[in-house]
């Protein structure tokens, strides 16, 4: 629901990275969007397209990868993919640490 502000955050980070590389043209951005990040990939793409145009980044391909939920059970040690509505381990334990699917990352960028 806050995809617009997230898109602006992303552009700000990208601007810094492009500046570090003396303004080499940006060609590709790869994002990883966690299933539980609260971010809708299609909506994010919509706002990023607009934001990229404002930056005159015209030929940038945007790859949005979904990061699935991942968890580690502290009781039996299993690494597993929990269901969206049930984070307990199949061993019955609820002492579980989420290890993936929550964050929103810029994985990589490609410059010309």
């Amino acid at each position: 629901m806050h995809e617009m502000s997230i898109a602006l955050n992303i552009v700000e980070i990208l601007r810094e990275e492009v500046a570090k590389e003396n303004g080499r043209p940006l060609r590709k951005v790869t994002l990883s969007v966690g299933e539980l990040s609260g971010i809708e990939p299609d909506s994010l793409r919509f706002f990023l397209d607009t934001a990229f145009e404002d930056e005159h980044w015209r030929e940038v391909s945007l790859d949005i990868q979904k990061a699935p939920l991942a968890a580690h059970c502290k009781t039996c040690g299993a690494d597993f993919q929990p269901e969206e509505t049930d984070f307990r381990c199949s061993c019955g334990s609820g002492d579980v640490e989420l290890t993936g699917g929550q964050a929103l990352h810029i994985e990589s960028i490609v410059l010309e």
Partner: protein
Amino acid sequence: MKEIKLQKNVLSKNDVIAAELRKQFTQKRLLVLNLLSSPGSGKTSLLEETAKALGSSLRFAVIEGDLQTERDADRIRKYGVKAVQINTGRGCHLDANMIAGAVTQLDLDSIDVLFIENVGNLVCPAAYDLGETAAVLLVSTTEGDDKPAKYPTAFLKADLLVLNKIDLAPYTNFSTERFREDAARIKPKLKMIEVSCTTGAGIDQWIQWLEEQIKAKKIL
């Protein structure tokens, strides 16, 4: 062509500011609670009941997050509680930078607890660390018992679950049992307190929890 592996968290700037706030709050031994809920669950009502119950025994201040208006802050100010209103405009959540701005308007040394009443929304506020000591999730019975399954991130973030409007539960199809079970699927050890801000039921348990948290802060 040059590829750069960034692996950069998009919210890293927020998290840096949140960490600075947490450091500041910890040094002052201040309990800071981030209050999350849907619109209309009773966040401001809970704060009003808190002000009534605490009287002058504990000093607290409130940062109110709303899209617009000062209405919530005005409700709190009637009880002599200092309230800073943040209007987020179209923004659906508070971020750490807004809190950093708001705390400059407060005398943190003169209070025991700072409540941050987040924008009513169970999605976006869950993604933003505000430097709080604990997150309190408020859900009311009239919203339905399906909230844990629909908004798992808010339940994951929560350190305390407060179920409000229990006086209205008989008029709805809300099942406290189902709600408790579904919440436990997301966060097994999440403590739940049942209250009614209208009848005052359970408010004593909420105040007790609050006093325990403050005590723990002061001893640490």
